[in-house]
């Protein structure tokens, strides 16, 4: 899906909203979201599309949002960094680092307060763990045993800054989590089965009232921090490093892992690819045929109309 969107993005210049692609990080989106029900809410940061889709978010509404259409999931107000599909349990995404982490804690607290066996999850990057709000949120969640799963997609970079420039050697995100009293697991984030198994444990832990859990998923984004480009020419990471990680493609690995059990897996993957490519092209065509929001409604949504 995102590969195709990236092509449109680059070639047509009609998706006029900054997009942070998750290409290469599919296993963390799929493996975790598959361990949730639509009643469990997922919040994310700016890298939002993959979890949105993995959670079952409506594809047409996402694409229409990227094209700025009134029928977009945020009616053309929010763009790529502010997508939402409440029916699927995708509860929102935001652009400011760390911003949704305490929000997920609040939702989880509310679920627990209502006596519901629901879980809130929040995706964020390694960079977001440097925000103070990460520590503050872990602390509250641990004290109050809130049913929240923190999902850190550690892709080693914050824009162009490597993890080594930002976090001290010998420390880890799981270590910080443990120190705050939140149990955690470090998982190969490109192995969808490992991610899924860990996510099931984490979600069960939260759902059964044992409090928060943190998953750190080691993964890698293939494209530039924002936009459709490859960025190994810019000097902050090498072509070799990207090649090493593309060789760890989560989809290729999942396919390989299934080959012994499912002899037809390659054909099935090829079929899925054709089907999803058709779907995404259709969604783009549909989005482009939709009207833009009317300028008369520019202020709609800022407030409810005032009673006078």
């Amino acid at each position, binding site marked *: 899906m995102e590969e195709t969107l990236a092509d449109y993005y680059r070639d047509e210049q009609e998706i006029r909203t900054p997009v942070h692609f998750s290409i290469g990080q599919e296993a963390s989106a799929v493996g975790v979201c598959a361990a949730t029900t639509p009643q469990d809410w997922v919040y994310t940061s700016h890298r939002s599309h993959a979890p949105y889709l993995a959670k079952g978010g409506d594809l047409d509404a996402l694409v229409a949002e990227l094209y700025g259409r009134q029928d977009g999931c945020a009616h053309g107000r929010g763009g790529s960094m502010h997508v939402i599909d409440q029916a699927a349990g995708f509860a929102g995404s935001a652009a400011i680092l760390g911003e949704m982490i305490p929000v997920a804690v609040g939702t989880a607290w509310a679920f627990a307060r209502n006596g519901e066996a629901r879980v809130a999850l929040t995706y964020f990057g390694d960079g977001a763990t*440097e925000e103070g709000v990460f520590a503050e949120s872990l602390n509250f969640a641990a004290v109050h045993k809130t049913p929240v799963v923190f999902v850190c997609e550690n892709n080693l970079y914050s824009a162009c800054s490597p993890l080594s420039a930002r976090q001290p050697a010998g420390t880890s995100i799981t270590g910080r989590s443990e120190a705050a009293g939140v149990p955690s697991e470090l998982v190969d984030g490109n192995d969808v089965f490992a991610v899924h198994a860990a996510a099931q444990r984490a979600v069960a832990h939260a759902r059964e009232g044992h409090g928060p859990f943190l998953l750190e998923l080691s993964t890698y984004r293939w494209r530039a921090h924002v936009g459709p480009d490859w960025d190994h020419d*810019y000097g902050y990471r090498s072509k070799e490093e990207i090649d090493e990680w593309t060789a760890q493609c989560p989809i290729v690995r999942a396919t390989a892992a299934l080959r012994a059990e499912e002899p037809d897996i390659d054909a099935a993957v090829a079929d899925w690819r054709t089907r999803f490519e058709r779907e995404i092209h259709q969604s783009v065509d549909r989005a482009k045929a939709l009207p833009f929001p009317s300028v008369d409604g520019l202020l709609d949504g800022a407030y409810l109309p005032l009673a006078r």
Partner: protein
Amino acid sequence: MRKLTYGQAISEATVQCMLQDDRIFVAGEGVDDVNGTFGTTKEAFARFGAGRVIDMPNAENATAGFAIGAAAAGFRPLLVHIRADFMFLALDPLVNLAAKWRYTYGGDKGGVPVVTRGVVGRGWGQGATHSQSPHATFAHYPGLHVATPASPADAKGLLVQALTGDTPVVLIENRNLYSLTGEVPTEAVPIPFGVGRIARPGQDVTVVAASLMVHEAERAAEQLALRGISVEVVDVRSLRPLDDDIICSSVAKTGRLVVADTSWSRYGFAAEVAAVVAENVPQALLAPVRRITLPDSPAPVSQPLEEAYHPSADAIADACLAVCGEARGDLPGLVDVAAGFQGPF
């Protein structure tokens, strides 16, 4: 005089000040990366290295507090935020400590001259958190100086003032200005805060503007000149201190006021300018004040909404015509400074 871009002027000011004063250091997320904060921190990093141009973790609150501590101990931090929106995470230390430091410790123990650069401005569909300009927010608090350079010369001079003065300063730069060129002095000459500039003299209407809107006002003025309407454009340069005198004497001369700003009207820069005029030269006004600002909503992403959202040269021209009691007629539309932007960011 030789010409530089606005971005080059900031870079030059940074490097020259760092050469003159080794207590100055730069800190911010990605200041050392390939993009070098729209090119403004690249040369400083190339010259002074990672010891003085420091890539910070994503920790704006701690970074601002850290800078205050370093400043209290004699250093001169220059913090850089590639989007000013991230400064909201630094509000507490900047507002509760930096702004008040000198005063709360009695006035004679020294202040903390932390300088913060924040970048604002639309690109494409940046949305609610990346299209807002918090200059008025910071200008609200006594103790901070807040400047919004509009020209390359001011980008250099105001930064030099910030880095050589003794008060904490917030500089808000519009990303659409980085490529504009203008004459810039070779030496690091400070431009004092609180002294506005007549960007274009005129007789019939005063447009008071800050930052990018100075350029949009100049475009509008050029076009209205064809109609025989003479517009005076006042660039305030700094919001705090604000040059009340230049605003009031211009309005006393023209009798008409339009304020143009890239932020919202309510409780903002435009409201403040209107209040200054109402308090000081109310009898001068021949027509009600007009404010050209953002509509009262967060920024939308969708292209037609975004086009309608951002204040334009056309809107300024319309407001000037209105206060002069004239109709727009067949005046052609104007293209905004930010119009040529290409994505992704």
